[in-house]
């Protein structure tokens, strides 16, 4: 059955072959005159075609050529195999025929001759036609018969004929003595040629050139180098290598790599007892663990942990270090929690911390802050001391600069900036006497001798020594005698015309007026009431003077001053003189006239000084609110520095008999301390802060300007910038 079908196919193919093979032979059509009938057939077909698509391109021609050879090969293959079915072969046939049609067209166009029997005449083109001009024939046909010339039409006829079929172009063929009708395609050809274009419309004269070989980076298009020997001879080196490998394999030297296997994890820490011995290495400091998350890091924190929008906006204005790193957010359910974007970054930061942060053992103090406070003796045991405000002395109209208590403790004197000096009765608060001195009073000081009720007042450049008028007649007598200046005496500096100080009689108040060359800031009586020291900060080398009232004499101190003097104090029992400059306190022996000690306060600016009644301890107050206690026997450094006031300390005072001292400050408070000095030299003084006394009001940034203790009672007088003097009692 298979065989039959095959034969059938073959038959089919054969028939086809008849039709298909012919054109191949015909390819160069002008040469082949045989098979004329078949050719004419094709010609007929051709005419049908050429009417509608009269012009096929050259490309198709070339294409068909190549196709041709391929198809012929195909056909043979098909014939041999006989595999394709009839239908397919039919199709092929169709395609084949169409190709042929194309082919034929191409052929015809290329040849531009209308029929196969061209050239009736056989004389050939070599013979010039004019040889036949006079003959009746124009040549001979293929059988040797004469071809007779046609009757020549007259011109009219020819014109008519031309007008009859004007559509077609006719030309005369002289060689064959015929009229040839040109086809449409041919006329197009001619027209294009006349225009100077390529005859075929589809021909592209500027087509990109395609090389028929591949360059592949070759310098020259083709190489004619001979094939090298190594291409066809087995490599010697390879052979050697193979031999070597083979030998190595035989010897067992060559073994193939196996993929590495991870050794199984074996249990470490098997016997812990062996590792108990301490390693020789330094102890590793373990890194601190990360802080555990608080409520605010929850995905669903309580509402109060979520900052409001204003707070979040406020974060922007903060410094970057202060800004909270994490802003709590709230998610309604677990499925809505997004991935944390900083997860990798935070882990990296932790890694860097572990790697780069220096570690150190830090002793963590786990103590309550209260335990840091020193245990103070109970205040009740330290009584009496001034506690509450008992009295106020009102009358001044401006800040009270200074107060001073009478030695008897009955009266106090006060000097104010309003230019008055007043004397008050302590117990009642009555103002007994007023002196108008017209200028601001800096300092007032009662004479410490009870029998001599005299008051020294510093007013700008003057010191007034006034008779207060207290005491019995005898005392008054003495005072008057003392204060009598018969003629002005002046202390002249050698070679200087301007006198440093001059003793004058004050007519207005009936006392002595000591006129200085500079403003006097503070005055201090000697305990015996005869000497009076005055400090003029601007006086340079003559800044401190000591006046002797009984002799109406003044003298400079014989020491060089280092720095600006602030105040000076006499030792309560011995002839020792303290001069405090801005930085240090110098202690001089007045008898031997030499420096005993220099107390280094370490303060920025000393403002006041007070000496303990025993004379071995000194307290120094400063403008920065610090208070230094010096134990003169101990060292020149402060025994204790107390930082109590936020503002300047203006004055300090020791009580004469009770172990208390006080400091007044510009922050409107006065502190009362217990300052016990023991007679046992081995025991350090005990300092206990007792009370903060408030009540003064601030005016012009100043608060308490002066404070003084009552000579017998534990009472404290404070002079305030609010023009009030207060008495604090126990």
């Amino acid at each position, binding site marked *: 059955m298979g065989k039959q079908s095959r034969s059938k196919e073959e038959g089919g193919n054969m028939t086809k072959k008849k039709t298909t093979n012919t054109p191949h032979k015909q390819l160069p059509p002008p040469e082949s005159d045989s098979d004329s009938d078949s050719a004419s057939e094709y010609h007929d077909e051709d005419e049908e075609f050429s009417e509608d698509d009269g012009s096929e391109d050259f490309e198709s021609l070339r294409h068909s050529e190549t196709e041709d050879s391929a198809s012929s090969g195909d056909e043979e293959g098909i014939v041999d195999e006989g595999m394709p079915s009839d239908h397919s072969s039919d199709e092929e046939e169709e395609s084949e025929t169409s190709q042929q049609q194309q082919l034929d067209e191409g052929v015809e166009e290329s040849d531009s001759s209308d029929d196969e029997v061209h050239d009736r005449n056989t004389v050939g083109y070599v013979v010039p036609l004019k040889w036949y001009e006079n003959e009746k024939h124009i040549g001979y046909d293929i059988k040797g018969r004469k071809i007779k010339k046609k009757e020549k039409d007259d011109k009219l006829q020819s014109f008519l004929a031309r007008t009859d079929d004007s559509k077609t172009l006719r030309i005369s063929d002289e060689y064959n003595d015929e009229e040839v009708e040109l086809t449409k395609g041919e006329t197009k050809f001619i027209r294009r040629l006349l225009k100077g274009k390529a005859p075929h419309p589809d021909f592209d004269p500027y087509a990109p050139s395609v090389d028929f070989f591949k360059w592949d980076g070759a310098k020259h298009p083709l190489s004619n180098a001979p094939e090298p020997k190594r291409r066809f001879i087995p490599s010697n080196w390879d052979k050697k290598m193979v031999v070597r490998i083979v030998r190595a394999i035989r010897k067992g030297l060559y073994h193939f790599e196996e993929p590495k296997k991870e050794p199984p994890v074996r249990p470490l820490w098997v016997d812990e007892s062996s590792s108990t011995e301490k390693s020789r290495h330094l102890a590793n400091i373990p890194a601190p663990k990360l802080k555990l998350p608080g409520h605010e890091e929850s995905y669903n924190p309580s509402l109060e942990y979520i900052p409001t929008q204003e707070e979040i906006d406020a974060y922007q204005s903060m410094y970057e270090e202060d800004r909270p790193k994490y802003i709590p957010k709230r*998610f309604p359910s677990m499925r809505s929690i997004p991935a944390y974007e900083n*997860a990798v970054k935070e882990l990296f930061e932790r890694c860097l911390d572990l790697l780069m942060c220096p*570690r150190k053992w830090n002793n963590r103090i786990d103590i309550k802050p209260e335990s840091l406070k*020193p245990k103070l003796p109970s205040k009740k045991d330290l009584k009496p001391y001034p506690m509450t405000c008992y009295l106020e002395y009102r009358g001044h109209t401006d800040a009270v600069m200074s107060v001073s208590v009478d030695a008897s403790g009955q009266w106090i004197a006060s000097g104010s900036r309003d230019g008055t000096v007043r004397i008050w009765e302590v117990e009642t608060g009555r103002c007994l006497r007023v002196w108008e001195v017209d200028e601001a009073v800096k300092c007032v000081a009662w004479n410490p001798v009870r029998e001599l009720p005299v008051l020294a007042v510093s007013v700008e450049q003057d010191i007034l020594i006034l008779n207060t008028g207290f005491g019995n007649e005898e005392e008054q007598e003495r005072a008057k005698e003392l204060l009598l200046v018969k003629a002005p005496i002046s202390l002249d500096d050698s070679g200087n015309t301007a006198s440093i100080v001059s003793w004058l009689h004050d007519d207005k108040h009936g006392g002595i007026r000591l006129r200085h060359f500079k403003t006097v800031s503070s005055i201090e009586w000697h305990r015996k009431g005869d000497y009076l020291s005055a400090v003029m900060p601007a006086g340079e080398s003559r800044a401190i003077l000591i006046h002797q009232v009984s002799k109406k004499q003044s003298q400079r101190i014989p020491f060089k001053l280092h720095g600006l003097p602030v105040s000076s104090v006499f030792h309560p029992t011995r002839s020792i003189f303290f001069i405090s400059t801005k930085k240090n306190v110098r202690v001089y022996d007045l008898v031997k006239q030499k420096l005993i000690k220099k107390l280094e306060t370490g303060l920025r600016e000393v403002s006041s000084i007070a000496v303990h009644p025993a004379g071995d301890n000194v307290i120094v107050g400063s403008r920065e609110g610090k208070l230094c206690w010096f134990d003169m026997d101990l060292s020149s450094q402060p025994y204790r520095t107390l930082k109590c006031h936020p503002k300047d300390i203006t004055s300090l005072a020791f009580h004469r008999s009770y172990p208390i001292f006080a400091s007044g400050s510009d922050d409107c408070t006065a502190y009362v301390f217990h300052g016990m000095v023991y007679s046992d030299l081995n025991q350090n003084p005990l300092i206990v802060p007792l009370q903060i006394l408030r009540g003064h009001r601030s005016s012009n940034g100043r608060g308490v300007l002066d404070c003084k203790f009552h000579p017998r009672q534990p009472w404290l007088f404070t002079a305030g910038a609010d023009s009030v003097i207060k008495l604090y009692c126990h």
Partner: protein
Amino acid sequence: MKHYRPPGKKKEGNAAKYITRSQAVKLLQVSLPLFRKLCILKGIHPREPKKKVKGNHHTYYHLKDIAFIQHDPLLEKFREQRAYEKKIKKAKAKKNQERANRLELRRPDYKLDRLVLERYPKFVDALRDLDDCLTMVHLFAALPVSDRKKVEAERVHNCRRLSHEWQAYISRTHRLRKVFVSVKGIYYQAEIQGQKITWLTPHALQQVLPDDVDYTVMLTFLEFNETLLAFVNCHLYHTINVTYPPILDPRLEAFAEELYALSRWFAATSSTSMVDSEASGLSGSEQVKSEQETSLNESELRLAQLQHQLPSNEPGALMHLVEDLSGEDEEDEDTRECKKLFRTMKFYLSREVPRESLLFVIPAFGGMVSWEGDDAPFGEGDENITHQIVDRPTQAHRILSREYVQPQWIYDCINARIILPTEGYLVGRVPPPHLSPFVDNDAEGYVPEYAETIKRLQAAARNEVLPLPGIGKDDLEDPQNLLAEGVIDRAEAKEAAERKQMMMTLEKQYHDELKKELHGVQYSSSVSNMQSSFGEEMEEGKEEALPDMQQIAEDTENLSKIVMPRKKRGLYEAMQIGKERKRAHVALLEERKKKIKESQKSNGN
């Protein structure tokens, strides 16, 4: 003052003990990256010398530390590697690809187990330092693989495996104590050998690898941490008599349910484990149940599992039982409590809940759990399910016998160690705030509202559970009464406050009147200066006496501060600042709370 060292004299003190980093690098003759790597692997850190000889802006290493690195074989190994690297490079440059490939295979390798033992001579030391290790491994288990950043797939898988092994151990031995869901991830705290180990796992979402991170440093840390965790896991597995690299069911592994696979592995090997018999029996019954449910084609797998279990039915198993009982004594009270928390409950997880976390957490507290998917122990239709964990706005189909709760309920129950009422956590409701279990509320000074309610519930639960005979009736009163008492207390406090307020207003009134009087006196009378001042003084004295109490208290405080030495005073003040900050924070919270309440009230009205 410049110190002069005579030429023959050696350096002394800090100058001799500490060297800067660049000096160390020079001494070791390594590059800086390699130095870093060595430091990471050896666990060497800079130290803070008492005196910084070279200046403040240097990092100082102890000379002994550097010598420690210098004498480590690892350094030689790294040098060898570097030389080897050159060989490969050379082979490549000579186009000897074959040699290069061969060399690649034989690259010198190093092991870190010696270092682990050296750094942590005892197991407890390793546990103490495990926090960072666990956090890192868990994070890397969730990272995407990236060639450019050298995060290799192999390492990510290894991290995943290690983290699951760790979790399986914790879950199996009921060591988990606290869980906290934060924005950054989920914090877990476990307690092993008395060490509290806290770690953070990221949420199971795609992580982004940022560019501004040095991955080489991180990967070196990871290298050590992986090794450490592997050895720790190994040790822990050996303590409960389970062979270490657990052989997992490949099918479950394929479903990315390693944790469950691991728990299976435990169950299978429980015959030899020290875990008590009851638990194993429980899991066994679970398995049997699941067996019934699942179809035949899966039974092969189960059979294999059961075969592992078979020895427990053999006579030898009795011996093990005894062992188990003795083992139980070792468990502390905490563990026993944890084990019982969800004992009677059966959970089913919906698709949308964080399954990995819950699968880890619920069995750790003795619950049974299943999920939606193939190979789950039981399906959604199981009638014994008591709770279904759901995290969606609504639940359409409901089964009456079970409660549909949000996952937060589980975490809150764990932290409170009691079964909380589920009302607040039901589907579709906004759950109550999730509080951090790591905060000591009393120390912080602020107790959130929900913490108080939990505390009350805990107290109530304790009373119910422990009706001790010796205690009188008062203590046994039910929580309602307790609550009522609380309310009464509060009411009393309120009353007292009101009374105080009244007093204050009266006082103020009195003061005002006084003042008015004073002014009147001043206006009306033109008495002498003295008298008026006296009168004023008197009045003022009275006025001042009243606010004095506060002033006095303040003064006494200030006075004792004055006498303090400067150093102590500074310390004291610093403490006060810290306290003040804390107080301010609490005040801020309270203020916010007040505002929120007000706004809620106004909204309600």
